[in-house]
């Protein structure tokens, strides 16, 4: 099966054996001229099966992961990278919450939705793309938006990244890009290709020019959302 998709402003022609990726990426179909091509093979499926949890998934899903990996490998060529976080747009500006799986970023995003209502649109609840220009950054939706399928094919200028940690009370502080960097790196797709990795590190460096960084210790009470929103929206 073949289809053409535009993700984070980059158009890719995808050829697959199964239809899984094409179903996931339905909102991203485009008719543009491809920037690059991604084609899968049975070896790609077997590689995904060898990853943690891979033996629990069917071939179609594994192939979709393989496509997303191939796309993520190329995105640094287009000043973009995959970032594991929950990304929201409020009044047209992008805010992301980053944390290891299970910490509560989706829960916190849900508290923001309750607090901010229609001002907020979900960009992506799992793996958005970030495009890092010299003095601005943009967060984009992508086909992989988490188990609740929360996301849209939209983008917004990225204003703030918040590292989320569980805490008994709610407390937020602004931190430097340098302090955030190792954590950002752990949530970023790390290419297999060394020169793509070097580009990714440089893109993460660029974020310091236009994005603010925060560290939030929070519980799951609605107050947590007020604390983070008031700080991050300044």
């Amino acid at each position: 099966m073949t289809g053409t998709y535009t993700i984070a402003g980059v158009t890719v022609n995808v050829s697959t054996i199964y239809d899984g990726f094409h179903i996931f990426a339905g909102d991203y179909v485009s008719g543009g001229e491809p920037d690059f091509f991604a084609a899968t093979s049975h070896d790609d499926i077997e590689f995904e099966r060898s990853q943690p949890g891979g033996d629990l998934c069917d071939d179609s899903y594994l192939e979709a992961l393989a496509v997303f990996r191939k796309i993520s490998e190329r995105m640094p060529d287009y000043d973009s990278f995959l970032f594991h976080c929950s990304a929201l747009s409020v009044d047209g500006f992008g805010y992301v919450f980053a944390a290891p799986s299970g910490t509560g970023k989706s829960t916190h995003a849900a508290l923001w939705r309750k607090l901010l209502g229609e001002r907020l649109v979900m960009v992506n609840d799992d793996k958005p793309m970030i495009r890092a220009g010299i003095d601005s950054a943009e967060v984009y939706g992508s086909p992989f938006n988490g188990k609740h399928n929360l996301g849209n094919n939209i983008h917004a200028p990225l204003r703030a990244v918040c590292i989320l940690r569980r805490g008994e009370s709610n407390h937020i502080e602004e931190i430097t890009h340098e302090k955030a960097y190792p954590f950002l790196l752990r949530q970023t797709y790390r290419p297999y290709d060394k020169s793509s990795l070097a580009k990714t590190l440089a893109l993460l460096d660029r974020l310091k020019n236009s994005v603010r960084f925060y560290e939030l210790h929070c519980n799951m009470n609605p107050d947590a959302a007020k604390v983070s929103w008031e700080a991050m929206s300044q």
Partner: protein
Amino acid sequence: MGDIIFLILFFYTRKEDLHMKLRNEFLIHQNESETLLVPAGSAEFSGIIKGNATFGEILSLLKDDVTESKIIETLCKEYDAPEEIISRDVKKILDSLRQVKALEE
């Protein structure tokens, strides 16, 4: 027949004189005050190692073929610290790098 004396000579290379360098899939990234060692997705190790400026200097030396002795000698010229302390710290860092399979020896 007289006694036949076999003189067997063993040649060992001291560990400190073995050549080593950083594996190709590891990248060095410098922040303002710390150095990060970042493996590409193809490496067995998927974490990140961070350290101070001295760690950064050792990694810089490991970009090319180098021996442990040479690393110690270079740092001794630069830093005003006893050789045994420098030597101890270098060994510790090299052992950490070996643990994450960052060295080619």
